[in-house]
Protein backbone atom coordinates (compact mmCIF):
# COMPACT_ATOMS: atom_id res chain seq x y z
CA UNK A 1 0.00 0.00 0.00
CA UNK A 2 0.89 3.62 -0.25
CA UNK A 3 1.85 5.85 2.59
CA UNK A 4 -1.14 7.65 4.03
CA UNK A 5 0.51 11.05 4.29
CA UNK A 6 0.27 11.95 0.65
CA UNK A 7 -1.39 15.28 -0.03
CA UNK A 8 -4.23 13.54 -1.80
CA UNK A 9 -7.58 14.53 -0.38
CA UNK A 10 -9.23 12.39 -3.01
CA UNK A 11 -10.69 9.64 -0.91
CA UNK A 12 -12.06 7.95 -4.00
CA UNK A 13 -8.54 7.26 -5.12
CA UNK A 14 -7.39 6.01 -1.77
CA UNK A 15 -10.43 4.37 -0.28
CA UNK A 16 -9.78 2.14 2.65
CA UNK A 17 -6.09 2.54 2.16
CA UNK A 18 -6.39 0.72 -1.19
CA UNK A 19 -5.62 2.29 -4.50
CA UNK A 20 -8.85 2.60 -6.41
CA UNK A 21 -9.42 0.34 -9.41
CA UNK A 22 -11.43 0.92 -12.53
CA UNK A 23 -14.35 -1.37 -13.25
CA UNK A 24 -16.90 -1.43 -16.05
CA UNK A 25 -20.19 -2.64 -14.68
CA UNK A 26 -23.25 -3.40 -16.75
CA UNK A 27 -26.79 -3.99 -15.54
CA UNK A 28 -30.29 -4.38 -16.87
CA UNK A 29 -32.08 -1.18 -16.04
CA UNK A 30 -35.55 -2.62 -16.46
CA UNK A 31 -34.89 -5.29 -13.87
CA UNK A 32 -35.06 -4.57 -10.16
CA UNK A 33 -32.26 -7.09 -9.76
CA UNK A 34 -29.99 -5.13 -11.99
CA UNK A 35 -30.74 -1.51 -11.41
CA UNK A 36 -31.74 -2.15 -7.78
CA UNK A 37 -28.24 -3.18 -6.75
CA UNK A 38 -26.67 -0.31 -8.65
CA UNK A 39 -29.05 2.25 -7.18
CA UNK A 40 -28.41 1.02 -3.66
CA UNK A 41 -24.66 1.00 -4.19
CA UNK A 42 -24.80 4.55 -5.48
CA UNK A 43 -27.00 5.68 -2.62
CA UNK A 44 -24.82 4.10 0.05
CA UNK A 45 -21.65 5.20 -1.75
CA UNK A 46 -20.42 1.63 -1.70
CA UNK A 47 -18.24 2.11 -4.77
CA UNK A 48 -16.15 4.72 -3.02
CA UNK A 49 -16.00 2.60 0.06
CA UNK A 50 -14.69 -0.40 -1.87
CA UNK A 51 -12.27 1.76 -3.82
CA UNK A 52 -13.87 1.19 -7.20
CA UNK A 53 -13.76 3.83 -9.88
CA UNK A 54 -16.92 2.53 -11.43
CA UNK A 55 -18.19 2.98 -14.93
CA UNK A 56 -21.86 2.03 -15.08
CA UNK A 57 -23.68 1.13 -18.28
CA UNK A 58 -27.33 0.16 -18.59
CA UNK A 59 -28.28 -2.65 -20.97
CA UNK A 60 -31.57 -4.15 -22.07
CA UNK A 61 -30.56 -7.79 -21.90
CA UNK A 62 -27.91 -10.33 -21.04
CA UNK A 63 -26.54 -11.33 -24.45
CA UNK A 64 -25.54 -7.76 -25.32
CA UNK A 65 -23.54 -7.61 -22.10
CA UNK A 66 -21.77 -10.81 -23.02
CA UNK A 67 -20.95 -9.33 -26.41
CA UNK A 68 -19.57 -6.24 -24.72
CA UNK A 69 -17.53 -8.49 -22.42
CA UNK A 70 -16.07 -10.36 -25.34
CA UNK A 71 -15.09 -7.04 -26.87
CA UNK A 72 -13.40 -6.00 -23.62
CA UNK A 73 -15.83 -3.16 -22.92
CA UNK A 74 -17.39 -4.68 -19.85
CA UNK A 75 -16.04 -6.49 -16.78
CA UNK A 76 -19.09 -7.33 -14.71
CA UNK A 77 -22.75 -7.59 -15.56
CA UNK A 78 -26.10 -8.91 -14.46
CA UNK A 79 -28.33 -11.39 -16.26
CA UNK A 80 -31.59 -13.15 -15.51
CA UNK A 81 -31.94 -16.91 -15.20
CA UNK A 82 -32.86 -17.23 -18.88
CA UNK A 83 -29.41 -16.12 -19.97
CA UNK A 84 -27.27 -18.07 -17.54
CA UNK A 85 -26.61 -20.69 -20.20
CA UNK A 86 -24.09 -18.22 -21.57
CA UNK A 87 -21.71 -18.50 -18.63
CA UNK A 88 -22.50 -22.20 -18.65
CA UNK A 89 -21.13 -22.45 -22.16
CA UNK A 90 -17.99 -20.53 -21.26
CA UNK A 91 -18.81 -16.97 -22.31
CA UNK A 92 -18.38 -15.58 -18.78
CA UNK A 93 -18.11 -16.68 -15.19
CA UNK A 94 -20.85 -16.44 -12.59
CA UNK A 95 -19.47 -14.77 -9.47
CA UNK A 96 -22.65 -14.45 -7.42
CA UNK A 97 -26.22 -15.69 -7.55
CA UNK A 98 -28.76 -12.91 -7.44
CA UNK A 99 -32.35 -13.98 -7.06
CA UNK A 100 -34.74 -16.82 -7.56
CA UNK A 101 -37.75 -15.84 -9.66
CA UNK A 102 -41.21 -17.22 -9.62
CA UNK A 103 -42.46 -14.89 -12.32
CA UNK A 104 -42.58 -17.32 -15.24
CA UNK A 105 -46.00 -18.45 -16.33
CA UNK A 106 -47.83 -20.57 -18.79
CA UNK A 107 -51.12 -18.78 -19.38
CA UNK A 108 -53.98 -20.19 -21.44
CA UNK A 109 -56.64 -18.03 -23.02
CA UNK A 110 -60.23 -18.63 -21.94
CA UNK A 111 -61.24 -19.45 -25.53
CA UNK A 112 -58.71 -22.27 -25.75
CA UNK A 113 -60.44 -24.13 -22.94
CA UNK A 114 -57.12 -25.35 -21.61
CA UNK A 115 -57.11 -25.82 -17.84
CA UNK A 116 -53.85 -27.71 -17.41
CA UNK A 117 -50.65 -28.34 -19.25
CA UNK A 118 -52.03 -31.61 -20.65
CA UNK A 119 -54.69 -29.61 -22.49
CA UNK A 120 -52.29 -27.53 -24.52
CA UNK A 121 -51.55 -30.33 -26.93
CA UNK A 122 -52.00 -29.02 -30.46
CA UNK A 123 -52.45 -25.42 -29.35
CA UNK A 124 -50.52 -22.37 -30.48
CA UNK A 125 -48.03 -21.44 -27.78
CA UNK A 126 -46.35 -18.07 -28.03
CA UNK A 127 -42.93 -17.99 -26.46
CA UNK A 128 -39.95 -15.63 -26.55
CA UNK A 129 -36.98 -17.57 -27.81
CA UNK A 130 -34.02 -17.70 -25.50
CA UNK A 131 -35.72 -16.47 -22.36
CA UNK A 132 -37.10 -18.05 -19.26
CA UNK A 133 -40.49 -18.47 -20.95
CA UNK A 134 -39.00 -21.23 -23.02
CA UNK A 135 -37.64 -22.84 -19.89
CA UNK A 136 -40.96 -22.90 -18.06
CA UNK A 137 -42.60 -24.28 -21.16
CA UNK A 138 -40.05 -27.03 -21.40
CA UNK A 139 -40.44 -27.94 -17.75
CA UNK A 140 -44.21 -27.98 -18.05
CA UNK A 141 -44.23 -30.09 -21.19
CA UNK A 142 -41.83 -32.56 -19.57
CA UNK A 143 -43.99 -32.86 -16.52
CA UNK A 144 -47.08 -33.45 -18.64
CA UNK A 145 -45.32 -36.06 -20.72
CA UNK A 146 -45.47 -33.93 -23.83
CA UNK A 147 -42.76 -32.67 -26.17
CA UNK A 148 -42.41 -29.56 -28.28
CA UNK A 149 -43.70 -31.51 -31.25
CA UNK A 150 -47.08 -31.83 -29.57
CA UNK A 151 -47.71 -28.12 -29.63
CA UNK A 152 -47.49 -25.40 -32.24
CA UNK A 153 -44.62 -23.30 -31.00
CA UNK A 154 -44.88 -19.66 -32.08
CA UNK A 155 -41.61 -17.78 -31.50
CA UNK A 156 -42.26 -14.13 -30.67
CA UNK A 157 -40.60 -11.06 -29.26
CA UNK A 158 -41.51 -10.76 -25.55
CA UNK A 159 -43.88 -7.77 -25.89
CA UNK A 160 -45.30 -9.34 -29.03
CA UNK A 161 -46.39 -12.33 -26.96
CA UNK A 162 -48.71 -10.02 -25.06
CA UNK A 163 -50.12 -8.37 -28.17
CA UNK A 164 -50.61 -11.73 -29.81
CA UNK A 165 -52.29 -13.22 -26.77
CA UNK A 166 -54.58 -10.29 -26.18
CA UNK A 167 -55.63 -10.15 -29.81
CA UNK A 168 -56.29 -13.87 -29.87
CA UNK A 169 -53.46 -14.86 -32.20
CA UNK A 170 -52.11 -17.47 -29.78
CA UNK A 171 -53.83 -19.79 -27.32
CA UNK A 172 -51.11 -20.05 -24.71
CA UNK A 173 -48.40 -17.65 -23.62
CA UNK A 174 -45.17 -18.80 -22.02
CA UNK A 175 -44.07 -15.52 -20.55
CA UNK A 176 -42.37 -13.89 -17.60
CA UNK A 177 -43.27 -11.06 -15.26
CA UNK A 178 -44.17 -8.24 -15.72
CA UNK A 179 -45.54 -9.12 -19.13
CA UNK A 180 -47.52 -11.94 -17.53
CA UNK A 181 -49.21 -9.42 -15.23
CA UNK A 182 -50.16 -7.37 -18.23
CA UNK A 183 -51.83 -10.38 -19.79
CA UNK A 184 -53.76 -11.11 -16.64
CA UNK A 185 -54.91 -7.50 -16.46
CA UNK A 186 -56.01 -7.42 -20.07
CA UNK A 187 -57.61 -10.85 -20.08
CA UNK A 188 -58.73 -11.50 -16.49
CA UNK A 189 -60.35 -14.80 -17.38
CA UNK A 190 -57.05 -16.21 -18.61
CA UNK A 191 -55.87 -19.29 -16.74
CA UNK A 192 -52.42 -19.78 -15.31
CA UNK A 193 -51.60 -23.40 -16.00
CA UNK A 194 -48.00 -23.49 -14.84
CA UNK A 195 -45.58 -21.46 -12.76
CA UNK A 196 -42.07 -21.86 -11.36
CA UNK A 197 -43.52 -22.93 -8.08
CA UNK A 198 -44.80 -26.08 -9.75
CA UNK A 199 -41.21 -27.16 -10.35
CA UNK A 200 -39.32 -26.82 -7.08
CA UNK A 201 -36.42 -28.89 -8.43
CA UNK A 202 -35.32 -26.17 -10.77
CA UNK A 203 -34.64 -22.75 -9.30
CA UNK A 204 -34.53 -19.91 -11.81
CA UNK A 205 -31.47 -18.12 -10.55
CA UNK A 206 -30.30 -14.81 -11.90
CA UNK A 207 -26.64 -14.00 -11.51
CA UNK A 208 -23.87 -11.47 -11.59
CA UNK A 209 -21.18 -12.55 -13.99
CA UNK A 210 -17.66 -11.42 -14.71
CA UNK A 211 -15.97 -11.54 -18.09
CA UNK A 212 -13.33 -14.15 -18.71
CA UNK A 213 -10.74 -11.42 -19.16
CA UNK A 214 -11.66 -9.83 -15.85
CA UNK A 215 -11.39 -13.18 -14.13
CA UNK A 216 -7.86 -13.42 -15.38
CA UNK A 217 -6.54 -9.89 -15.10
CA UNK A 218 -8.86 -8.04 -12.79
CA UNK A 219 -9.73 -10.54 -10.06
CA UNK A 220 -9.02 -7.97 -7.40
CA UNK A 221 -11.48 -5.52 -8.90
CA UNK A 222 -14.16 -8.17 -9.28
CA UNK A 223 -13.65 -9.15 -5.69
CA UNK A 224 -14.21 -5.55 -4.65
CA UNK A 225 -17.36 -5.46 -6.75
CA UNK A 226 -18.58 -8.42 -4.71
CA UNK A 227 -17.93 -6.43 -1.54
CA UNK A 228 -20.27 -3.81 -2.92
CA UNK A 229 -22.74 -6.45 -3.94
CA UNK A 230 -22.78 -8.14 -0.55
CA UNK A 231 -23.66 -4.91 1.20
CA UNK A 232 -26.16 -3.81 -1.41
CA UNK A 233 -27.74 -7.25 -1.38
CA UNK A 234 -28.28 -7.19 2.34
CA UNK A 235 -29.72 -3.72 2.10
CA UNK A 236 -32.24 -4.69 -0.55
CA UNK A 237 -33.23 -7.80 1.31
CA UNK A 238 -33.95 -5.71 4.39
CA UNK A 239 -35.38 -2.65 2.67
CA UNK A 240 -37.24 -3.79 -0.45
CA UNK A 241 -39.48 -0.67 -0.60
CA UNK A 242 -36.56 1.71 -0.43
CA UNK A 243 -34.74 -0.36 -3.00
CA UNK A 244 -37.68 -0.10 -5.37
CA UNK A 245 -37.81 3.66 -4.85
CA UNK A 246 -34.10 4.09 -5.43
CA UNK A 247 -34.24 1.89 -8.53
CA UNK A 248 -37.21 3.75 -9.92
CA UNK A 249 -35.42 7.04 -9.39
CA UNK A 250 -32.26 5.69 -10.98
CA UNK A 251 -33.79 4.22 -14.12
CA UNK A 252 -37.06 6.08 -14.54
CA UNK A 253 -38.91 2.77 -14.52
CA UNK A 254 -42.33 2.88 -12.88
CA UNK A 255 -42.11 1.91 -9.20
CA UNK A 256 -45.22 -0.26 -9.24
CA UNK A 257 -43.77 -2.31 -12.08
CA UNK A 258 -40.54 -2.84 -10.17
CA UNK A 259 -42.54 -3.70 -7.08
CA UNK A 260 -44.40 -6.23 -9.19
CA UNK A 261 -41.08 -7.85 -10.00
CA UNK A 262 -40.14 -7.95 -6.35
CA UNK A 263 -43.38 -9.73 -5.53
CA UNK A 264 -42.47 -12.57 -7.86
CA UNK A 265 -38.99 -13.28 -6.64
CA UNK A 266 -36.94 -14.19 -3.65
CA UNK A 267 -33.74 -12.54 -2.49
CA UNK A 268 -31.30 -14.22 -0.13
CA UNK A 269 -29.24 -12.65 2.58
CA UNK A 270 -25.56 -12.53 1.85
CA UNK A 271 -24.93 -14.97 4.66
CA UNK A 272 -27.38 -17.33 3.04
CA UNK A 273 -25.59 -16.94 -0.27
CA UNK A 274 -22.28 -17.63 1.38
CA UNK A 275 -23.68 -20.72 3.00
CA UNK A 276 -25.27 -21.92 -0.25
CA UNK A 277 -21.97 -21.35 -2.00
CA UNK A 278 -20.10 -23.32 0.57
CA UNK A 279 -22.40 -26.31 0.89
CA UNK A 280 -22.69 -26.70 -2.87
CA UNK A 281 -26.34 -25.62 -3.15
CA UNK A 282 -25.47 -22.80 -5.51
CA UNK A 283 -23.59 -25.05 -7.91
CA UNK A 284 -26.29 -27.64 -7.67
CA UNK A 285 -28.93 -25.13 -8.67
CA UNK A 286 -26.92 -23.82 -11.60
CA UNK A 287 -26.22 -27.39 -12.55
CA UNK A 288 -29.94 -28.08 -12.70
CA UNK A 289 -30.41 -25.04 -14.88
CA UNK A 290 -27.62 -26.29 -17.13
CA UNK A 291 -29.39 -29.59 -17.59
CA UNK A 292 -32.45 -27.70 -18.68
CA UNK A 293 -30.40 -25.69 -21.17
CA UNK A 294 -28.96 -28.83 -22.64
CA UNK A 295 -32.43 -30.24 -23.00
CA UNK A 296 -33.55 -27.03 -24.69
CA UNK A 297 -30.64 -27.29 -27.11
CA UNK A 298 -29.00 -24.08 -25.99
CA UNK A 299 -25.90 -26.03 -25.12
CA UNK A 300 -24.56 -29.19 -26.64
CA UNK A 301 -23.19 -30.81 -23.53
CA UNK A 302 -22.92 -29.84 -19.87
CA UNK A 303 -19.65 -28.51 -18.46
CA UNK A 304 -18.42 -29.01 -14.95
CA UNK A 305 -20.16 -26.37 -12.87
CA UNK A 306 -16.94 -25.41 -11.04
CA UNK A 307 -15.60 -24.07 -14.33
CA UNK A 308 -18.23 -21.45 -14.68
CA UNK A 309 -19.54 -20.75 -11.20
CA UNK A 310 -16.90 -19.16 -8.99
CA UNK A 311 -17.56 -19.17 -5.26
CA UNK A 312 -14.10 -18.26 -4.01
CA UNK A 313 -14.17 -14.58 -4.86
CA UNK A 314 -17.44 -14.20 -3.02
CA UNK A 315 -15.93 -15.80 0.03
CA UNK A 316 -12.90 -13.52 -0.19
CA UNK A 317 -15.11 -10.49 -0.45
CA UNK A 318 -17.10 -11.54 2.58
CA UNK A 319 -13.81 -12.07 4.34
CA UNK A 320 -12.44 -8.62 3.60
CA UNK A 321 -15.69 -7.01 4.67
CA UNK A 322 -15.72 -8.57 8.06
Amino acid at each position, binding site marked *: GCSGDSESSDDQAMAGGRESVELNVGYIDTSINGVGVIAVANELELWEKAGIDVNLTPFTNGPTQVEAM*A*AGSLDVGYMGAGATWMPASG*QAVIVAPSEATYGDFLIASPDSGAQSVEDIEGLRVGVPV*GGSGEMILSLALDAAGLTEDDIEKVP*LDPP*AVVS*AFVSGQIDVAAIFSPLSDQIMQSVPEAVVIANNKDFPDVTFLGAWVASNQAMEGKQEAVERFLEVYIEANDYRKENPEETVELAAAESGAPAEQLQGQVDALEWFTSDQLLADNEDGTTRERFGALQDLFVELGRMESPRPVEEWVDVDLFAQAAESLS
Partner: protein
Amino acid sequence: MRRRQGVSLAWLYLATFVLGIGLWWLYAALGDNELAPAPPEVIESFREGLRDGWLLEHTAASLQRVVAGFLLGVALAIPAGFLMGWYRWARGMVEPWVQFFRTVPPLALIPLVIVFLGIGETAKIFVIFLAAFLSCVIATFQGVRNVDVTFVNAARVLGANDATIFARVIVPASMPYIFVGMRVALGSSWATLVASELLAAPTGLGRMMQSAQQFLQTERIVVGIIMIGALGFAMDRLLLVLERRLTSWQEVR
Protein backbone atom coordinates in the same frame (compact mmCIF):
# COMPACT_ATOMS: atom_id res chain seq x y z
CA MET B 1 -10.36 8.30 -67.22
CA ARG B 2 -13.65 7.85 -68.93
CA ARG B 3 -11.93 6.34 -71.88
CA ARG B 4 -9.45 3.94 -70.44
CA GLN B 5 -11.12 0.57 -70.51
CA GLY B 6 -9.42 -0.70 -67.37
CA VAL B 7 -10.23 -3.89 -65.55
CA SER B 8 -13.78 -5.06 -65.59
CA LEU B 9 -16.09 -4.48 -62.66
CA ALA B 10 -16.36 -8.19 -61.99
CA TRP B 11 -12.65 -8.43 -61.29
CA LEU B 12 -12.75 -5.45 -58.99
CA TYR B 13 -15.65 -7.03 -57.15
CA LEU B 14 -13.65 -10.18 -56.75
CA ALA B 15 -10.61 -8.25 -55.57
CA THR B 16 -12.51 -6.32 -52.94
CA PHE B 17 -14.23 -9.51 -51.88
CA VAL B 18 -10.94 -11.34 -51.38
CA LEU B 19 -9.59 -8.30 -49.55
CA GLY B 20 -12.58 -8.26 -47.26
CA ILE B 21 -12.28 -11.93 -46.42
CA GLY B 22 -8.58 -11.46 -45.84
CA LEU B 23 -9.08 -8.61 -43.39
CA TRP B 24 -11.72 -10.53 -41.54
CA TRP B 25 -9.52 -13.59 -41.26
CA LEU B 26 -6.64 -11.50 -40.07
CA TYR B 27 -8.79 -9.88 -37.44
CA ALA B 28 -10.20 -13.20 -36.30
CA ALA B 29 -6.73 -14.67 -36.09
CA LEU B 30 -5.04 -11.76 -34.31
CA GLY B 31 -7.89 -10.46 -32.17
CA ASP B 32 -8.68 -12.36 -29.03
CA ASN B 33 -12.45 -11.97 -29.25
CA GLU B 34 -14.05 -15.36 -28.82
CA LEU B 35 -17.22 -14.12 -30.43
CA ALA B 36 -15.55 -13.20 -33.70
CA PRO B 37 -15.61 -16.37 -35.77
CA ALA B 38 -12.96 -17.02 -38.39
CA PRO B 39 -13.82 -17.92 -41.99
CA PRO B 40 -13.24 -21.68 -41.52
CA GLU B 41 -15.79 -21.86 -38.71
CA VAL B 42 -18.28 -19.98 -40.80
CA ILE B 43 -17.69 -22.23 -43.76
CA GLU B 44 -18.14 -25.20 -41.47
CA SER B 45 -21.45 -23.80 -40.24
CA PHE B 46 -22.44 -23.11 -43.83
CA ARG B 47 -21.73 -26.69 -44.86
CA GLU B 48 -23.56 -27.98 -41.87
CA GLY B 49 -26.53 -25.80 -42.80
CA LEU B 50 -26.52 -27.14 -46.31
CA ARG B 51 -26.15 -30.70 -45.15
CA ASP B 52 -28.87 -30.52 -42.52
CA GLY B 53 -31.12 -28.52 -44.78
CA TRP B 54 -31.82 -25.65 -42.40
CA LEU B 55 -29.93 -23.13 -44.47
CA LEU B 56 -32.00 -23.70 -47.57
CA GLU B 57 -35.19 -23.83 -45.60
CA HIS B 58 -34.53 -20.53 -43.85
CA THR B 59 -33.31 -18.91 -47.03
CA ALA B 60 -36.33 -19.98 -49.04
CA ALA B 61 -38.74 -18.72 -46.40
CA SER B 62 -37.03 -15.35 -46.16
CA LEU B 63 -36.57 -14.95 -49.87
CA GLN B 64 -40.26 -15.46 -50.44
CA ARG B 65 -41.17 -12.84 -47.89
CA VAL B 66 -38.70 -10.31 -49.13
CA VAL B 67 -39.62 -10.77 -52.76
CA ALA B 68 -43.33 -10.53 -52.01
CA GLY B 69 -42.97 -7.52 -49.73
CA PHE B 70 -40.56 -5.77 -52.06
CA LEU B 71 -42.64 -6.27 -55.17
CA LEU B 72 -45.82 -5.17 -53.45
CA GLY B 73 -44.11 -2.16 -51.96
CA VAL B 74 -42.62 -1.02 -55.23
CA ALA B 75 -45.77 -1.72 -57.19
CA LEU B 76 -47.75 0.49 -54.84
CA ALA B 77 -45.08 3.14 -54.36
CA ILE B 78 -44.90 4.09 -58.02
CA PRO B 79 -48.53 5.13 -58.44
CA ALA B 80 -48.57 6.58 -54.93
CA GLY B 81 -45.49 8.66 -55.65
CA PHE B 82 -47.09 9.81 -58.87
CA LEU B 83 -50.29 10.87 -57.14
CA MET B 84 -48.30 12.72 -54.51
CA GLY B 85 -46.16 14.46 -57.06
CA TRP B 86 -49.06 15.34 -59.31
CA TYR B 87 -52.04 16.16 -57.16
CA ARG B 88 -51.71 18.58 -54.34
CA TRP B 89 -54.48 16.96 -52.31
CA ALA B 90 -52.80 13.57 -52.54
CA ARG B 91 -49.55 15.07 -51.42
CA GLY B 92 -51.19 16.92 -48.55
CA MET B 93 -53.04 13.87 -47.31
CA VAL B 94 -50.45 11.18 -47.81
CA GLU B 95 -47.09 12.84 -47.33
CA PRO B 96 -47.32 13.42 -43.59
CA TRP B 97 -48.07 9.76 -42.99
CA VAL B 98 -45.34 8.58 -45.26
CA GLN B 99 -42.89 10.87 -43.52
CA PHE B 100 -44.20 9.83 -40.18
CA PHE B 101 -44.03 6.11 -40.68
CA ARG B 102 -40.68 6.36 -42.39
CA THR B 103 -39.15 7.61 -39.19
CA VAL B 104 -40.90 5.14 -36.92
CA PRO B 105 -38.68 2.18 -36.12
CA PRO B 106 -40.13 -1.03 -37.55
CA LEU B 107 -39.77 -2.63 -34.13
CA ALA B 108 -42.24 -0.17 -32.68
CA LEU B 109 -44.77 -1.09 -35.33
CA ILE B 110 -44.84 -4.76 -34.55
CA PRO B 111 -47.42 -4.65 -31.74
CA LEU B 112 -49.73 -2.70 -34.02
CA VAL B 113 -49.23 -5.11 -36.87
CA ILE B 114 -50.07 -8.03 -34.62
CA VAL B 115 -53.30 -6.43 -33.57
CA PHE B 116 -54.42 -5.72 -37.12
CA LEU B 117 -52.86 -8.46 -39.18
CA GLY B 118 -52.13 -11.19 -36.70
CA ILE B 119 -48.96 -13.22 -36.73
CA GLY B 120 -49.31 -15.04 -40.01
CA GLU B 121 -47.33 -14.69 -43.18
CA THR B 122 -49.40 -11.64 -44.14
CA ALA B 123 -48.15 -9.72 -41.16
CA LYS B 124 -44.53 -10.50 -41.94
CA ILE B 125 -44.89 -9.58 -45.58
CA PHE B 126 -46.65 -6.41 -44.52
CA VAL B 127 -43.73 -5.24 -42.42
CA ILE B 128 -41.38 -5.75 -45.34
CA PHE B 129 -43.87 -4.23 -47.74
CA LEU B 130 -44.07 -1.14 -45.56
CA ALA B 131 -40.33 -0.70 -45.48
CA ALA B 132 -40.06 -1.10 -49.24
CA PHE B 133 -43.01 1.13 -49.92
CA LEU B 134 -41.85 3.94 -47.66
CA SER B 135 -38.36 3.96 -49.13
CA CYS B 136 -39.52 3.82 -52.70
CA VAL B 137 -42.37 6.29 -52.52
CA ILE B 138 -40.12 9.20 -51.56
CA ALA B 139 -37.82 8.60 -54.48
CA THR B 140 -40.70 8.24 -56.91
CA PHE B 141 -42.32 11.35 -55.55
CA GLN B 142 -39.13 13.31 -56.02
CA GLY B 143 -38.74 11.86 -59.47
CA VAL B 144 -42.21 12.98 -60.44
CA ARG B 145 -41.59 16.45 -59.12
CA ASN B 146 -38.35 16.66 -61.05
CA VAL B 147 -39.74 15.69 -64.43
CA ASP B 148 -38.88 18.38 -66.94
CA VAL B 149 -42.01 20.37 -67.63
CA THR B 150 -41.14 20.41 -71.31
CA PHE B 151 -42.01 16.75 -71.69
CA VAL B 152 -45.29 17.15 -69.90
CA ASN B 153 -46.15 20.06 -72.15
CA ALA B 154 -45.15 18.15 -75.24
CA ALA B 155 -47.45 15.32 -74.24
CA ARG B 156 -50.31 17.66 -73.44
CA VAL B 157 -50.24 19.31 -76.81
CA LEU B 158 -50.33 15.87 -78.37
CA GLY B 159 -53.58 15.27 -76.51
CA ALA B 160 -52.44 13.28 -73.51
CA ASN B 161 -54.62 13.23 -70.39
CA ASP B 162 -53.30 12.75 -66.87
CA ALA B 163 -53.38 8.96 -67.05
CA THR B 164 -51.42 8.92 -70.29
CA ILE B 165 -48.97 11.46 -69.00
CA PHE B 166 -48.42 9.30 -65.98
CA ALA B 167 -47.88 6.09 -67.87
CA ARG B 168 -46.01 7.39 -70.87
CA VAL B 169 -44.17 10.48 -69.68
CA ILE B 170 -43.82 10.61 -65.93
CA VAL B 171 -42.93 6.98 -65.47
CA PRO B 172 -40.23 6.85 -68.13
CA ALA B 173 -38.92 10.31 -67.31
CA SER B 174 -38.62 9.53 -63.62
CA MET B 175 -37.34 6.01 -64.24
CA PRO B 176 -33.87 6.89 -62.94
CA TYR B 177 -35.42 8.06 -59.69
CA ILE B 178 -37.70 5.06 -59.50
CA PHE B 179 -34.62 2.90 -59.75
CA VAL B 180 -33.01 4.76 -56.91
CA GLY B 181 -36.18 4.05 -54.98
CA MET B 182 -36.20 0.41 -55.93
CA ARG B 183 -32.60 -0.08 -54.98
CA VAL B 184 -33.09 1.60 -51.66
CA ALA B 185 -36.31 -0.34 -51.15
CA LEU B 186 -34.50 -3.56 -51.80
CA GLY B 187 -32.01 -2.75 -49.09
CA SER B 188 -34.79 -1.79 -46.69
CA SER B 189 -36.71 -4.96 -47.42
CA TRP B 190 -33.82 -7.14 -46.46
CA ALA B 191 -32.86 -4.97 -43.54
CA THR B 192 -36.39 -5.26 -42.18
CA LEU B 193 -36.45 -8.99 -42.57
CA VAL B 194 -35.23 -9.58 -39.05
CA ALA B 195 -37.88 -7.29 -37.60
CA SER B 196 -40.58 -9.02 -39.62
CA GLU B 197 -39.46 -12.43 -38.49
CA LEU B 198 -39.80 -11.41 -34.88
CA LEU B 199 -43.43 -11.99 -35.77
CA ALA B 200 -43.74 -15.65 -35.02
CA ALA B 201 -41.67 -17.02 -37.83
CA PRO B 202 -40.79 -20.68 -37.45
CA THR B 203 -38.24 -20.37 -40.25
CA GLY B 204 -36.35 -17.64 -41.97
CA LEU B 205 -32.87 -16.17 -42.00
CA GLY B 206 -33.87 -13.38 -39.65
CA ARG B 207 -35.33 -15.85 -37.21
CA MET B 208 -32.22 -17.94 -37.47
CA MET B 209 -30.06 -14.92 -36.73
CA GLN B 210 -32.27 -13.90 -33.85
CA SER B 211 -31.89 -17.22 -32.15
CA ALA B 212 -28.25 -17.39 -33.04
CA GLN B 213 -27.78 -14.04 -31.35
CA GLN B 214 -29.61 -15.24 -28.28
CA PHE B 215 -27.35 -18.23 -28.20
CA LEU B 216 -24.25 -16.37 -29.28
CA GLN B 217 -23.73 -18.73 -32.21
CA THR B 218 -21.81 -16.01 -33.94
CA GLU B 219 -20.72 -18.12 -36.88
CA ARG B 220 -24.35 -18.73 -37.65
CA ILE B 221 -25.07 -15.01 -37.51
CA VAL B 222 -22.30 -14.50 -40.00
CA VAL B 223 -23.77 -17.19 -42.23
CA GLY B 224 -27.06 -15.30 -42.06
CA ILE B 225 -25.43 -11.97 -42.80
CA ILE B 226 -23.58 -13.45 -45.74
CA MET B 227 -26.70 -15.10 -47.16
CA ILE B 228 -28.70 -11.90 -46.83
CA GLY B 229 -25.89 -9.83 -48.24
CA ALA B 230 -25.34 -12.18 -51.16
CA LEU B 231 -29.03 -12.44 -52.02
CA GLY B 232 -29.42 -8.68 -51.69
CA PHE B 233 -26.44 -8.12 -53.93
CA ALA B 234 -27.75 -10.56 -56.51
CA MET B 235 -31.18 -8.94 -56.57
CA ASP B 236 -29.53 -5.56 -56.84
CA ARG B 237 -27.59 -6.75 -59.89
CA LEU B 238 -30.88 -7.81 -61.44
CA LEU B 239 -32.24 -4.32 -60.84
CA LEU B 240 -29.17 -2.81 -62.46
CA VAL B 241 -29.60 -4.96 -65.54
CA LEU B 242 -33.23 -3.93 -65.71
CA GLU B 243 -32.25 -0.32 -65.25
CA ARG B 244 -29.73 -0.43 -68.04
CA ARG B 245 -32.41 -1.73 -70.35
CA LEU B 246 -35.02 0.78 -69.30
CA THR B 247 -32.90 3.90 -69.16
CA SER B 248 -30.56 3.35 -72.07
CA TRP B 249 -32.16 6.36 -73.73
CA GLN B 250 -30.30 8.64 -71.39
CA GLU B 251 -27.31 10.59 -72.56
CA VAL B 252 -24.97 9.77 -69.74
CA ARG B 253 -21.43 8.62 -69.48
